[in-house]
Structure formats: structure tokens, C-alpha cells
């Protein structure tokens, strides 16, 4: 029943069997983005009409589909998980030497037939570079990451605009606490669920006068009764006014960029992806001491 083949399968494209039923009969076949929505290259491209959602779109559990478009099991006992080429893969222990110099592992490969049945199994060598990417948890991890909805930062400043900032007086900078916290999202197929979490780790402030300030947290809100001249846990002291005699309303643009550390875990595996960023900006009027009275903007 089991043939020992020397077929070298070089799978590149992760797929959770998500796809529109059927495919055009040009040679693109299994690498069509409709069938590999988790491929980062596919995020660049527009979804075709009728494709399931856009990049990172969709929700819920997508069924796995076979070559004829019919819904099939994503996992079959003794056959393993269904991959992009309509074959099930199950890691096996074959002592045969690998057919290539590339490190990898033997997998039992059983392909769906056009009538929906599963054909005979054969051994296939799956390169290590490919294994990690095609492993189901890592595919679901990427999908879960794409479903993360990160809060946009909301900038707060003391003195609170429209009161202007004053040169040589500390400007307190912080973000609203509601947007600062761990976010998570999940992707699942029957029998396996992977959760991605994003944790805010840092705020990079661009203060508009050429300075940059990095704060490890959201900063501390200034409260009534605090000394406004005290050095804030997160803030900046302007030395040059934004307003000039010619342009009394000129402002600095203050930008806050939150970096999120993103990890996914599930199915006995875990991994990370590059940090994600959210950003917001606001305009700040900075005046010279005494300028408060001349602008008339003081309380």
C-alpha cells in the first residue's frame, strides 16, 4: 500500500484549505493567492472577485476544500493535515537517506482524488526550510496576527491645549490608558486554535522641534495638584517656540508611535513576527515665557 517514492516535495505556500471552489485551469494552480491567502506576497495583491475576504479579512473558521471545490476534512487520522496541493501530510519515521542535501523530514503524502476520495500514500521529503512555514500552527499564527486590531494612540499633553506649551517648562506627554494594553486575536480550524497577542512595549515621540523621546510606557497623566514644572516621567522641554512674531499660530506636530511586540502560540508551537506600530499626531503651540499673555490664550 505504501510506496516508497523519492518524490521531493518543495512546498512553499502555507494554506489552510481556504479558497474559492475550483481554480482556473492555467498552470498557476496551487499557488493562486485565492488558495494561499496567508502568503505575504498575496497581501500586496488585490483579492480577485469572489475571493474570501481581503488580506487579513474574513473571520470564523473557513472550511477546507478539495480539488473539485467540495468541503473536505482539514485533518484525517493517519493521513495528517491538508496542504495547498490537495494532499494530506503526516510526519513519519522513514530511515531512508534523504534524496537531497537539504535538511528535512519524511512525510506520508496522500492526495485527494478528483472524486473526493483519498489516494494511496507515498513518502515525500519535505525540506526543513519549508516545514516551519507549512506547519499548521505557524500558518494559523500568521492568520491570527493579521486579525489583530490594535488601538490607535490618543495623545494627551499638559498644559492641555488650547493652553500653549511654554519654552523651558516641561511638557508632559502621555497616551490615554484605554489604548494601552494587550490585544489578542485567534485563528482556528477544527481541532486547533492559535492565538496572537500584541503587547505595547514602547512609545517613540517626535516632538516637532527636532527632538525624539522614547518612553517605555504610556507615560503618566498630569493631574491637578501635581507640580507642572516637575520633570515628567515622559515628556519634553521645548527650548525654541513654535510661534514666531510673523507666525504667531505656527505649531509643532507631535507624533506618538507605539511599538507592539507580537507573538503567536497554539498547537504546541509559538513564534514571533516583527513589531507592529500604531501612530497618532497632534499640533502643539509652543510660546516663549511671557508669550502666554501676548497670545491671549492663557486661562
Amino acid at each position, binding site marked *: 500500500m505504501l510506496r516508497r517514492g523519492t*518524490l521531493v*516535495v*518543495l*512546498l*512553499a*505556500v502555507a494554506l489552510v484549505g481556504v479558497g*474559492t471552489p*475550483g*481554480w*482556473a*485551469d*492555467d*498552470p*498557476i*494552480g*496551487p*499557488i*493562486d*493567492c*485565492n488558495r494561499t491567502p496567508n*502568503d*505575504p*506576497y*498575496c497581501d*500586496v*495583491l*488585490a*483579492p*480577485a*472577485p*469572489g*475571493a474570501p475576504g481581503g488580506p487579513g479579512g474574513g473571520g470564523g473558521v473557513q472550511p477546507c476544500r478539495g480539488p473539485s471545490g467540495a468541503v473536505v476534512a482539514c485533518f484525517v487520522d493517519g493521513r495528517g493535515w491538508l496542504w*495547498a*496541493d*490537495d*494532499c494530506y501530510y503526516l510526519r513519519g519515521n522513514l530511515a531512508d537517506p534523504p534524496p537531497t542535501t537539504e535538511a528535512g523530514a519524511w512525510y506520508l503524502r496522500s*492526495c485527494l482524488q478528483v472524486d473526493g476520495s483519498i489516494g494511496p500514500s507515498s513518502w515525500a521529503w519535505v525540506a526543513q526550510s*519549508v516545514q516551519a512555514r507549512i506547519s499548521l500552527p505557524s500558518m494559523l499564527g500568521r492568520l491570527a496576527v493579521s486579525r489583530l486590531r490594535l488601538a490607535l494612540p490618543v495623545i494627551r499633553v499638559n498644559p492641555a491645549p488650547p493652553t500653549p506649551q511654554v519654552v523651558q517648562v516641561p511638557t508632559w506627554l502621555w497616551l490615554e490608558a484605554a489604548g494601552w494594553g494587550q490585544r489578542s486575536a485567534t485563528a482556528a480550524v477544527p481541532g486547533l486554535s492559535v492565538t496572537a497577542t500584541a503587547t505595547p512595549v514602547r512609545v517613540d515621540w517626535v516632538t516637532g522641534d527636532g527632538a525624539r523621546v522614547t518612553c517605555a510606557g504610556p507615560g503618566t497623566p498630569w493631574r491637578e495638584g501635581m507640580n507642572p514644572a516637575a520633570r515628567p516621567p515622559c515628556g519634553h522641554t521645548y527650548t525654541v517656540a513654535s510661534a514666531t512674531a510673523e507666525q504667531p499660530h505656527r505649531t509643532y506636530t507631535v507624533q506618538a508611535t507605539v511599538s507592539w511586540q507580537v507573538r503567536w502560540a497554539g498547537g504546541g508551537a509559538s513564534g514571533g513576527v516583527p513589531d507592529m506600530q500604531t501612530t497618532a499626531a497632534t499640533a502643539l503651540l509652543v510660546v516663549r515665557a511671557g508669550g502666554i499673555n501676548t497670545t491671549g490664550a492663557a486661562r
Partner: protein
Amino acid sequence: MWRAWVAAGATSDPNHPDLNRYASGDALTKARLALQTARDRGLVSKGEPVLNPRVDSASPPAKPRAVRIRDCIDTTKWLTYKASGELANDEPGGRRDVVADLRLRAGTWKVIGFGIAGVGSC
């Protein structure tokens, strides 16, 4: 790379030597996967895609060593056939949005990665 893929498709040969010359890494793996899948089904391809490439970005701009290409390929005359010579089925091809990354290595441009969107995407 398309020419190599077209040539390899005549026999659905995932190890066609031309593939190596024009593609590496992810791109080579993907092309081979498509060819291997066709071979497993006993299919070959005939014809060729109509290309319409444009440079999306290049770096460094003055003397690029990395280029991203966008294309809208037309596959209506690049289809898969059974060994008997008849079309594999009556699903037509069509226009597909394509992105491809090329790198200059040892004086040769190679496709290192690409993505191909579904029919009707451009």
C-alpha cells in the same frame, strides 16, 4: 522566469534546469510546487502568458540591485492539458495581478519571490 516556467510546463518538470537560472528561494519553490502538482495529476501546460510588467520600486534608485515588479498577466492562452492532448477542463484562465521581487546576484537578475492573485484581479 516565465519563459523557464513555460518551458518546464511542457513536461511539467519541476527540476527543469532553466528554473534555477531565473528563480531562487521562494520563487523557485513556488514554481516547482505548481509544476509538481500538475505532474502528479498527469497534466502539462501549453501556450504562454501575456505579460505587461512595470517596475513598482527599485533600490538603490540610481543603480538598482533590488526591483519589485507589478504585472497583470493574461493566462487565457496558457492552459493545462491532459496527456491525451485535450484541455484539462473548461475553466478559462484570465488576468491575474502579479507582484515579483528580483535581486541582482553575480550579475544576474533572479526572481526571489512572487505572488499571483486570482483570475479577474486586474
